[in-house]
């Protein structure tokens, strides 16, 4: 009898040990480029965020931050949430999130500089703290970094277990004249991310957003 009780207790302990929330959750940190002409693309970013709100499940984490002159700052986070385990509460959180983004998009002003690296560093820090099972950093930008005087971003990225996805990488006028510049820019980012042990992808077709998590 004692043996049976011990077996049942052991099974319960094993089952409790297996109850894992973090392992299956996803953490998404989206960076929105608000510099110069790219600010007009933010409506597209809003639809991507809406898509993310639709597919993320209770327990997942989502944060949206802007890329401006100095992006390595919590102040640039527009909205963030770890969705509650209860679907009804998670739905309410999503509604609030959506509202925050809507307000931001309607009132956004262009920034003078583009500090993408700072944003990525902030994303790494945030997601490491949130500790989700899968980590995604989405960069909604043309990937043209333009640092203000005095900003130093030669810090290496530590991106193991991170998926870094560049979305809607638009071609600049100079790129149209010389595509090599565009390719070099994308390649430079790939190298930077992969040097930090991250997985790099580019999704320009916004009709294929399901590739964000299945790719």
């Amino acid at each position: 009898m004692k043996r049976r009780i011990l077996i049942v207790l052991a099974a319960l302990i094993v089952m409790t040990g297996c109850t894992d929330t973090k392992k299956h959750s996803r953490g998404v940190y989206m960076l929105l480029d608000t510099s110069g002409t790219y600010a007009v693309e933010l409506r597209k970013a809003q639809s991507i965020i809406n898509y993310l709100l639709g597919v993320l499940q209770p327990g997942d984490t989502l944060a949206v931050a802007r890329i401006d002159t100095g992006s390595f700052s919590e102040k640039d986070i527009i909205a963030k949430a770890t969705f509650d385990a209860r679907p009804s509460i998670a739905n309410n959180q999503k509604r609030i999130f959506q509202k925050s983004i809507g307000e931001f998009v309607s009132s956004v002003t262009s920034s003078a500089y583009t500090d993408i690296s700072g944003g990525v560093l902030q994303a790494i820090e945030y997601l490491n703290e949130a500790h989700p099972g899968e980590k995604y950093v989405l960069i909604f930008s043309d990937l043209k970094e333009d640092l203000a005087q005095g900003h130093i971003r030669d810090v290496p990225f530590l991106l193991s277990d991170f998926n870094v996805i560049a979305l809607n990488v638009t071609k600049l006028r100079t790129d149209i004249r010389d595509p090599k510049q565009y390719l070099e820019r994308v390649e430079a980012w790939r190298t930077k991310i992969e040097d930090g042990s991250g997985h790099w992808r580019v999704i320009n077709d916004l009709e294929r957003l399901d590739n964000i998590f299945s790719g």
Partner: protein
Amino acid sequence: MEFANVVTITENPSLILLFWIALTILVLYFARRPFHGAIISLSRIIKNAMRLASAGVLAAEKRLVQRNREVLIATGIEHTERQVEREFGRINASVARDLDTYPTLHRKLSDLIIHLDEDYNASAEVPPSLPTWTPIIESLAKIKPPGDSMVAHMLGEINKTLTEQHTSALEVYRASTAARHTILSRMLPCWRRIEDVLGIVGKSIATLNERAAHVDRYMAAYEKIRAQEDATVRKLSSSSLTQFFVAGLVLAIAFGGALINFNLIALPMSEMVGGASYIGPYKTADVAGLVIILIELTMGLFLMESLRITRLFPIIGSMDDRMRHRMIWITLGMLMALAGVESALAFMRDRIAYDMEALRQSLSGVTEAARASHVIPMVGQMVMGFILPFALAFAAIPLESFIASSRTVLGIVGAGVLRLVAFALRLAGTLSYYCGRFVIAVYDFVIFPALWLEETVTGAWRNRQALQTRTPDTEQSGGTADMDHTLDDTLQYKEQPL
């Protein structure tokens, strides 16, 4: 001279090849007997091993068939015993019911018979007859008056008295007869009531007779099973197979029901246990939903056991009636509670689905359309949530049949597999034997020049021997034996029965 010089005795490659062939044939010829012996031994070992293994497998198959037969008979006996027991139970109930009412019936019959007896006695009273002197007075009254007024007056008085007496007697008689008729007519409903009572008794007896016929039939079947007749075993086996497939089909339907049930409660369970936690690779909400369904199935199983519909747990069936009734109410209560929970979960599911749909529309930027009435689907889900646990409870019945019949079906399949294995083993043994013979034949074919030479030499030698001894008949037979020694000895060796 070195070996290398021997083999390079000539530069001609054809000659070298021929030399090597001849050498090989020579070696093979000398190795022929041991090679034949080795091959035959090997093939015989394999064949015997296979035969032994096949015999072992066949013995196991026989044991399995026997065991299967025993199980079938035991199942058949148990089934028939249950039927007989049920019939006896019905007879018992019928007799108890009839015997309960029998004293009343008996009293009613006795009362009616007493009543009839009294009526009979009452109706047996003979009406008062007319006085015996009436004819004398009548004849006196009929005498014509002689003219004497006194006599005439006297006769007239007599006539008058007589007429009055007669009328009075007739009236009494009529009254008495009427009373008898009344009594007799009163007896008629008594007869009818007696007839009805006897009809009831007759019906009870007929029911008992019918039940007795059933019992006789079951007893006959029982006797047949006890006698272990092949036909009965075949019938039981076929019945078992039918049960297996039918129960399997019903279980598949029940599985479908459980799946629908699961889909009804899995989403709302995430509202209760959280949608973000996992047990292994599975969501805790899904596992919780599954556990609820399994608990419902278990409760259904216990309910059916307590009702003595199924007999998977003999300990429940053998409980005393009071405890069993308690268990029935407990399991039924738990099923009711679970059905209520499921119904509430179905309601919650509808609300969550509605909320999610609204959010989805909001996210996709679509203005929320006027939603069609969702009361009917919601009520439908709630009703399904309430009914499905009870429907699943009945899965215990096919489950019992499935388990009981699967034992037989597995036995039959196992016996078939064993037969197949035995056949394969025997086939492999026989094949190995003939392969051995084939290899020997091929070996002999390869060294046929040496064999031909041997045949030629020994033939010539035999002929010379025959001429010398001049006893051709005797020597020829002996010579034949010698000649065949090398080849036929081996063949004889091979042909020995294994």
